[in-house]
């Protein structure tokens, strides 16, 4: 498999850490470094197995985590220059970065809500072509990887035999997935792997999915954190208003573009 999915438009290592903290319901202010390092490396290994174009930042963060972990194993050194490392929690700097980043991640979410509201206000002379969106994911890459791990685990049990997949390639699998989505949309993430038992085949399917997402031929959406991930044909989910609008009731009504106009007409008359 010499197929590389480019990840530049996806998330970075800080996202992965925040994802892990949420997934395992850890206290961000008291991160169990050994555990999170282990989890982090597990994801990293998975990404590398997928031959994802893992950016250097991910490796750098892995090194940072391992460094912090080793420092925490050392007994507190009274003799250490008190000036250099005040208090001396080796995690302090990482925590600062995480919190600083999370602040803007949250702010970005708010901006997204405001953007969606503004997108409903139209004005004269506005370009008919809307924004070009370069990112496809309504779920994070790590949510996808997490779901993917689940699929892989099941496969490992039921088909321990590894078969060399000479006929498998991502390009063909993309076509298969497009056909699937043309017949039915949305499909639950795990449904894409139905009947797929071989590990290599599962990996190829996943890579094909990532490529479809990147090219916006499909989109992924998750209604609630850790909930099932739905895969949509194209970007059609954009028709709906994503959950979590500032005005929930508005969102629900507008969420059914077919139903709402009729209701509105009777309201207006």
């Amino acid at each position, binding site marked *: 498999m010499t197929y590389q999915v480019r990840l530049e438009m996806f998330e970075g290592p800080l996202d992965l850490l925040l994802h892990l903290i949420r997934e395992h319901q850890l206290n961000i202010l008291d991160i169990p470094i050994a555990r999170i390092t282990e989890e982090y490396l597990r994801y990293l290994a998975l990404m590398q197995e997928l031959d994802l174009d893992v950016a250097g*930042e991910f490796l750098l963060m892995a090194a940072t985590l391992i460094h912090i972990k080793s420092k925490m194993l050392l007994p507190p050194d009274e003799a250490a220059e008190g000036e250099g490392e005040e208090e001396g929690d080796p995690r302090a700097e990482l925590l600062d970065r995480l919190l600083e980043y999370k602040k803007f*991640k949250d702010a970005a979410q708010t901006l997204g809500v405001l953007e969606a509201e503004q997108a409903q206000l139209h004005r004269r002379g506005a370009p008919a072509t809307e924004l070009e969106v370069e990112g496809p994911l309504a779920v994070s890459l790590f949510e996808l990887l997490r779901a993917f791990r689940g699929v892989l685990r099941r496969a490992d049990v039921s088909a321990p035999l590894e078969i060399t997949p000479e006929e498998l390639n991502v390009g063909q699998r993309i076509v298969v997935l497009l056909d699937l989505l043309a017949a039915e949309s949305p499909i639950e993430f795990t449904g894409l792997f139905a009947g797929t038992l071989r590990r290599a085949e599962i990996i190829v399917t996943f890579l094909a999915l990532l490529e479809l997402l990147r090219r916006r031929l499909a989109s992924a959406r998750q209604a609630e954190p850790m909930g099932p991930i739905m895969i949509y044909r194209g970007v059609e989910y954009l028709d709906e208003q994503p959950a979590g609008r500032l005005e929930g009731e508005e969102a629900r009504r507008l969420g059914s573009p077919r139903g709402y106009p009729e209701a509105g007409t009777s309201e207006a008359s």
Partner: protein
Amino acid sequence: MSAELDRRGIVEALLFVAEEPLPLARLQEVLADEDPAATEATIRELAERLEEEGRGLMVQEVAGGFRLATRPEAHPWIQRLQQVKPAKLSRPALETLAIIAYKQPITRAEIEAIRGVAVEGVMRTLLERGLIRMLGRKAEAGRPILYGTSTDFLEHFGFKDLGDLPSLKEIDELIGPSGAESPSPNSGAAAEASPAVPPPTGNGTGDPTDAPEAT
């Protein structure tokens, strides 16, 4: 048969033809009002009239001016008419934009330090979209480019000015004393650069991160 054109009608006509949000001062000038308060009152009356009559348009105050926009309730029909999907910025783009909005003026390296990933591609998209702009260069080694948000940014998100940005959630209280004085190079950077780089809008509130105001 037709009622006489009143001041509200005139403002409505002006807003209709304007391609950008019309600043109050410009409207005042055109209406030849002595007092901006008179212009403002007319705008408000127009807004009320539109609302009372259940019209499809409303007056929106955005990006330092006023414009006519369709009411949100009209959106599903407009979508039917235009068959255009309201696309959204990607999450990485929104995050990058948020950092720029709250920390401007800011260099690419400073953004990358916060996001922990390269942002070159995302920044290019944002520049092409006109949501961010180059403000100048930072007075440090290499003279890196400083970025800030544009008027289009304000319009895109419906802000009157940068003071309208929602306040960043205050996290300092969450952090114990160890992290409270976290290194925050950004306020310093903004202060350094500000003489060379005027804030992008007329509202002089400065760095919005410093002023967590009610939203």
